[in-house]
């Protein structure tokens, strides 16, 4: 097997008396779509927070292309090529849709503050490139018509796609999607599935996706891990996971989410 893009080793996070994530290990290969499932409170979002640097882990390690990156701040991890979306949607609500994407295009390309103040030719060129890239992303996610709208006024599905556009604008190799299908209707879920597959192709992405909707994950993912009470209870292809007796008991067996 080639070197994994991201590896978590024995990662744990304790909140007071609660072990939200308990010695979780897995590795994600470049180009993979990797699913994370588990009942509510299983520690999926906490795991994303640990990987993206939002919360420091209590113990364990995160490796990026084999190098340890544990405990680095989010902005540095993002510059390495790790971008995320949020379960509860955290757009810059006062800014326009276009500006939301432009914010994330800060460094693509870089330009100096002095150049910006003096409106130098280099700065103008960089701004043009940023705007072009932003419009392209909006086009790709079907947000062009909404570009001038204030992000806070968007409909739910549009917000979800804007979050993805914003994350993509940072130029990631790894995209962490936290419940991107939540609140979408079946047709929208289908579209999302195709969109994620397409984005992987065009942006050479590796994707880790948290999702409750199991059929969607089964269809989309190359491999997946199952969390229950902070512990990774299964890891493998969707087919392997589906047959895992522990998974059937802990999660699929409850029937609630499997439908």
């Amino acid at each position: 097997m080639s070197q994994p893009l991201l590896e978590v080793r024995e990662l744990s996070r304790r909140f007071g008396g609660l072990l939200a994530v308990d010695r979780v290990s897995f590795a994600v290969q470049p180009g993979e779509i990797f699913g994370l499932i588990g009942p509510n409170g299983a520690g999926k979002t906490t795991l994303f927070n640990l990987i993206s640097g939002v919360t420091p882990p209590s113990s364990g390690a995160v490796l990026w292309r084999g190098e340890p990156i544990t405990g680095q701040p989010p902005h540095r991890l993002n510059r390495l090529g790790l971008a995320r979306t949020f379960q509860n949607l955290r757009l810059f609500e006062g800014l326009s849709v276009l500006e939301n994407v432009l914010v994330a295009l800060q460094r693509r390309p870089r330009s100096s503050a002095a150049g910006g103040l003096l409106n130098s030719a280099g700065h103008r060129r960089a701004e043009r490139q940023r705007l072009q890239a932003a419009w392209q992303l909006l086009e790709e996610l079907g947000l062009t018509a909404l570009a001038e709208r204030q992000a806070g006024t968007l409909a739910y599905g549009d917000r979800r796609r804007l979050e993805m556009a914003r994350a993509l604008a940072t130029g990631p190799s790894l995209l962490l999607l936290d419940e991107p299908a939540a609140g979408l209707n079946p047709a929208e879920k289908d579209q999302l599935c195709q969109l994620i597959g397409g984005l992987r192709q065009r942006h050479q992405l590796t994707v880790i996706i948290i999702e409750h909707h199991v059929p969607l994950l089964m269809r989309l993912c190359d491999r997946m891990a199952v969390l229950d009470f902070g512990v990774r209870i299964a890891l493998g292809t969707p087919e392997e996971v589906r047959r895992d007796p522990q998974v059937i008991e802990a999660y699929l067996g409850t029937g609630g989410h499997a439908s």
Partner: protein
Amino acid sequence: MIETLLQTLLNGAASGGVYALVALGYTLVFSVLGVINFAQGALFSVGGYLTFLLMGGRIGVNGALPGWGLPGGLPFWLALLLAAAGSGLVGLLVERVAFAPLRRRNAEPLLALITSLGAGVVLVNLLQLLMGAEGYAFPHGSDALGGLPDALVIAGARIRTIQLLLLLISAAAVLALSLWLERSRGGRALRAVAEDATTAQLLGIHSEAMVRLAFFLSGALAGLGGGLIGVSVSLPGPYFGIGYGLKGLAVLVLGGLGSVPGAIAGGLLMGLAEALVPSEASGWRDALAFAILFVVLLLRPRGLLGRRTVEKV
């Protein structure tokens, strides 16, 4: 040597008690609304002037009604009590004009900093219109303190009675308030609103009434502080409360926003630290509170006894 130390400590504890009063006033409002009431310093001034008038003081030559005063003259303790109640009522008024309209509109909490300060500016300048900018001294001697001697000798140290009273009264007020918050129905209701206004509402606790109660108590505490300092030191002018208001703010953060024990501990700590500044450096004393605050904030960003909150992502 021991005597001076005793005196210094008593002075420190006495002003520390007053700082704690002001800080508790902020704490009450902060716990229920999550905002700072910047009119607190002005209410401190109001309490000082009310006490002065109730004790029979007359308005000076620069005031609106020179020579005018309330008939009679109440004993010190009664005047103090009434002045505290009066400041509480003014506190209610501040809530009505500076906080309630913003709350009804769900406005940004930042705006309350401005409106409450506006209310403070109005109050202080109304005081100045009425009383003039001049300083006022309270009558001294046995009359002033209801027959108590002006000074006591304890363990060989001569101690001004008013300093001792200052300490005792602020300690009693602080203790009564903490007990009330802890034990009584009203106090528990207030704390319930502070914890979670929506749930409290579901439990049938009327949070608007609790907000008003918090503002009344908060104003009364500030007014009590103002009256005590006025009797003990004098009233140097309508703006004198602002300085105490700022010190109270430093104490509030030192102890941790919203923490009652923190406000008390912070107040005492600040008062004692100031009292221990040698007299050669007395000019720097006013900066000490803020220097301590600065260092504490950098070491413990939520104050000494503040609660830690985890942001939910």
